[in-house]
């Protein structure tokens, strides 16, 4: 159960973390995950330093490596997990934006609000230079309002399809005329702004200063949309969550001023979350798979290389495939992706720069008091699997760990490689 919580509320936990967690009340563990560390900002500081070096190079591709590095080291995994969620929700790709600083700023903004006020985040994203570039909204003229942003705001960011009319899109677009970017920053150009009355969702007003966003967020569909996405991200991929499940969460969002952290806390502490409906009911994303594998073994590897592997597996950080972000769920599973995942794990394990608690695999387990092949396999299953293995599978893996050829670390690596190809390993 603790492993399940850490997998979902972050990117898995290592043996020490799990041992500590089982001594505590689940609700307390959840609280700590949601609130994050009170001190020890060392990981944060190192991450910021690394970021500055990368931004100096101006290469957006390097940002992916920066984020991977941050994921290894973070002491606030839930914040990173939610930042990743919002990165997919407010999908913006460096492929088009091409500006490392803009992408980084957006990412930091998402991080700031990841467990915070969604309404504030929606306002921020509407003025975010990277987003405006991505949606071709760099200039938004009075005579030709840009409908793209208005449509995405409703369809993708706040309401979902089917909860607005074409007319609403057109009128909403007029609210954002004059919203531009100059010198990489948001600028309001009042000469291009259409300040007349607009009629949206049956309400007529001039809607200055982004107040139209508040109107959109007041729609009943809005909190349901966000709550639904949160449940899918944190609890189960399928089936689609029922209204009975979503409505109380939506109501909480409405009543608590869009406090995402509070709703996430409620979800993670719920009985549903720890039930059969949730455990093992999500397909692990490439990030979950690779970062999770490493973190559960106290490990790290070459961030640049791993960032490249994530692209290979379809989850390039800062490079979502389109405005809808990543579908997730079964979309991660297709013929070449499955083999790709296994191959990436194989490469990670063979990579000389991969470290496990500053050493190799054999010493890592030995330091935990785990020596025999059977014990290693047992530990691996506890750490990494959300569902049990068939009995003879365990025996086969133990045989591999015992007689697999090569030195002890290599044998353990092969066993993990084999484990990573199994269907059970794809679930998280």
């Amino acid at each position, binding site marked *: 159960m603790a492993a399940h919580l850490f997998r979902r509320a972050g990117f898995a936990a290592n043996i020490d973390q799990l041992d500590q967690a089982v001594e505590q009340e689940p609700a307390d563990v959840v609280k700590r995950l949601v609130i994050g560390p009170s001190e020890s900002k060392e990981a944060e500081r190192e991450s910021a330093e690394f970021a500055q070096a990368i931004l100096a190079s101006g290469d957006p591709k390097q940002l992916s490596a920066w984020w991977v590095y941050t994921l290894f080291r973070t002491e606030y995994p839930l914040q990173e997990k939610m930042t990743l969620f919002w990165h997919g929700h407010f999908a913006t790709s460096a492929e088009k934006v091409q500006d490392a600083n803009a992408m980084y700023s957006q990412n930091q903004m998402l991080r700031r609000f990841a467990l915070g006020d969604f309404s504030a985040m929606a306002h921020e994203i509407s003025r975010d230079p990277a987003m405006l570039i991505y949606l071709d909204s760099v200039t938004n003229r009075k005579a030709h309002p840009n409908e793209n942003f208005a449509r995405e705001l409703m369809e993708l960011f706040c309401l979902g399809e089917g909860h607005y009319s074409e007319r609403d899109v057109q009128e909403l677009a007029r609210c954002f005329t004059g919203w531009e970017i100059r010198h990489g920053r948001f600028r309001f150009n009042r000469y291009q702004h259409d300040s007349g009355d607009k009629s949206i969702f049956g309400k007529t007003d001039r809607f200055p200063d982004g107040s139209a966003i508040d109107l959109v967020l007041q729609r009943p569909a809005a909190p349901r949309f966000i709550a639904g996405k949160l449940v899918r991200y944190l609890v189960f991929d399928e089936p689609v969550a029922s209204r009975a499940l979503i409505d109380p969460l939506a109501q909480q969002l409405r009543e608590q001023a869009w406090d995402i952290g509070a709703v996430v806390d409620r979800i993670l502490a719920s009985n549903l979350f720890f039930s059969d409906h949730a455990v093992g*009911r999500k397909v692990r994303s490439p990030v979950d798979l690779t970062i999770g594998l490493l973190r559960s073994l106290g490990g790290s590897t070459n961030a640049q290389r791993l960032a490249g592997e994530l692209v290979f597996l379809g989850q390039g950080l800062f490079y979502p495939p389109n405005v809808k972000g990543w579908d997730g769920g*079964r*979309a991660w599973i297709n013929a070449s992706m499955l083999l*790709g995942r*296994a191959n990436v794990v194989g490469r990670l394990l063979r990579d000389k720069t991969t470290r496990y608690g500053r050493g190799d695999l054999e010493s890592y387990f030995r330091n935990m008091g785990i020596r025999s092949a059977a014990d290693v396999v047992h530990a691996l299953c506890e750490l990494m699997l959300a569902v049990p293995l068939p009995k003879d599978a365990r025996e086969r893996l133990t045989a591999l760990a015992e007689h697999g050829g090569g030195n002890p670390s290599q044998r353990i690596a092969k066993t993990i490689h084999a484990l990573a190809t199994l*269907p059970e390993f794809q*679930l998280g």
Partner: protein
Amino acid sequence: MSTRREFLATLGSSAIVSIGAVTPPAFLLKAAAAEAKEEPETVLVIIQLSGGNDGLNTVVPYSDDTYRRDRPALAIGADRVLKIDDECGFHPSLRGMADLFESGKLAIVHGVGYPNPNRSHFESMDIWHTCQRKGSPRSTGWLGRYLDASQTGSGGDAPALHLGGDKQPLALAAEQVRSPTIGSLDRFRLHDGGDTQLRETIEELVGQSREGGGDLLRFIQTSSKAALKAGRRIEAARRGYQTPIDYPQNRLAENLHTVAQLIDAGLGTRVYYLELAGFDTHSQQAGAHAALLNELGGGVSAFLQD
């Protein structure tokens, strides 16, 4: 796999009708109804010319006055085209295509489009991929709908494959059928570092069916098993595959080469989707276009010969 005519009929009913509710042209319906011999081995290979190919300079109406008048700088004259007839000819870089045409292996369909074309790249591409104008939901593409409707058995292999970058073309988006995107054949096999014991362990463990595990686990297990099987087939085919044909050295030709290998491997896939990008030319158009068409002609020609 259904016949070519059945395929067109499905298109007729699902895709073309969706554009402003126009009934399918009579010739398509007739073609569907007409019985012809079964063609069980047909494979459809689609090459998307991304960015917007200049069709008028590809199959050139060289004798048309309007064409010459409206394109003072870019018009290709009678002296340079590879003539098809009195009215049109190929762009001079399409030697490969012209040869295919001469040997009766190439057909050209003129004037495919939709009323009131949209000028935005993304919007227009979305319309082409989904055959839906704005206002209609665009969750599935024309190929995706065909794949869902036909649900052909492809022996566990993906019914359609996209070779290229990581973004799946909207045309392939479907309600049920998943079409993978692969960058190269190398991704299709398990890298076991030559360790047979490891490979055998993996294949055995993946091969076991997971009865009690639930929907998702079963789905993953069957997909994993199919993936390993496909990987083995492709590996064997690569070893056996020989071609005397010299493919040009560029991305498209490499991809076409890959398709040839997969077909040779007996993969059950019936639709392959490839892209040639770079047609979004606004400046230096003549040179860029010529180079791209050269790539296109050379690649297709080599592929068909193979």
